[in-house]
């Protein structure tokens, strides 16, 4: 089928959102407030270099090094920075440790504050209204939707992130992993287990 006569087959279309982003970038660049090259670097960093593997290394280190675990409990910002992961927004980090008695769950009811430096960018569900509202009201129900069923007597503690304070859940170390290297342990640490909507993988 041929194109109709009004159609220019070499037209490009910019959708309105893309055009507005370009417009902002143009205006701010002209004013010297941003550098397009720096924008590219940031995009590349978040798309390829920062992700949940960072957090997994933090957790695996805490599992295998009691001194580090203790530091992480007392001053997570410094302990995490010692591994080279520093927040760009000057936010403070707090590590919350799962135990036999308590499971921790992280949410941002305000918007989507998230520990970017250790987990990368948040998953879509974390930013969506249902999770943001229900994690506080019905954490047990939310966890079940994620396939996590906790013993009835296990307490669930929900941590609401802010622009200044972000949380990292340290899941419980799976059994049967004695003597494992930190590198091997890190493979058991999933993104969701560090948000609290999952548990660490079982040792295969």
């Amino acid at each position: 089928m041929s194109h109709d006569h009004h159609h220019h087959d070499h037209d490009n279309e910019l959708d309105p959102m893309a055009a507005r982003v370009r417009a902002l970038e143009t205006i701010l660049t002209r004013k010297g407030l941003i550098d397009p090259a720096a924008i590219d670097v940031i995009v590349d960093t978040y798309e390829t270099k920062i992700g949940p593997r960072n957090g997994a290394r933090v957790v695996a280190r805490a599992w295998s090094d009691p001194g580090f675990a203790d530091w992480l409990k007392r001053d997570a910002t410094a302990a995490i920075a010692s591994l080279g992961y520093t927040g760009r927004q000057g936010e403070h980090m707090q590590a919350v440790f799962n135990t036999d008695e308590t499971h921790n769950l992280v949410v941002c009811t305000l918007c989507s504050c998230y520990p970017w430096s250790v987990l990368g960018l948040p998953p879509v569900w974390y930013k969506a209204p249902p999770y943001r509202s229900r994690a506080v009201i019905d954490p047990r129900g939310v966890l079940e939707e994620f396939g996590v069923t906790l013993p009835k007597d296990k307490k669930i503690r929900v941590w609401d992130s802010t622009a200044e304070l972000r949380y990292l859940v340290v899941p419980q170390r799976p059994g049967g992993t004695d003597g494992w290297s930190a590198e091997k342990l890190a493979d058991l640490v999933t993104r969701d287990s560090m948000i609290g909507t999952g548990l660490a993988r079982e040792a295969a």
Partner: protein
Amino acid sequence: MFSEPWQAEAFAMVVALHERGLFTWAEWAERLSAEVKKPDAASDGSDYYGCWLAALERLMAEKGFAGHDEVDAVAAAWERAAHATPHGRPILLENDPESVL
């Protein structure tokens, strides 16, 4: 993480502007929160970066860095430039046939 390139660019602009000290992260979180809490925000979070962009535009207008009308005008120029650019060639603002630059 980003479903379209403009989302990544909008995200990175906020990070870059914040790093230059043009606003605090708390100021940003407040604007973003206002957008995502609007009653017409999608319940599946699919318009999250739309909210992000709206919050950025609002903050830039409030700070006097980029007014709404100015963004409208330059965005229209980008759309005209895109139309005037043959497929497969980079879209440049200079390609806007109505450009007065």
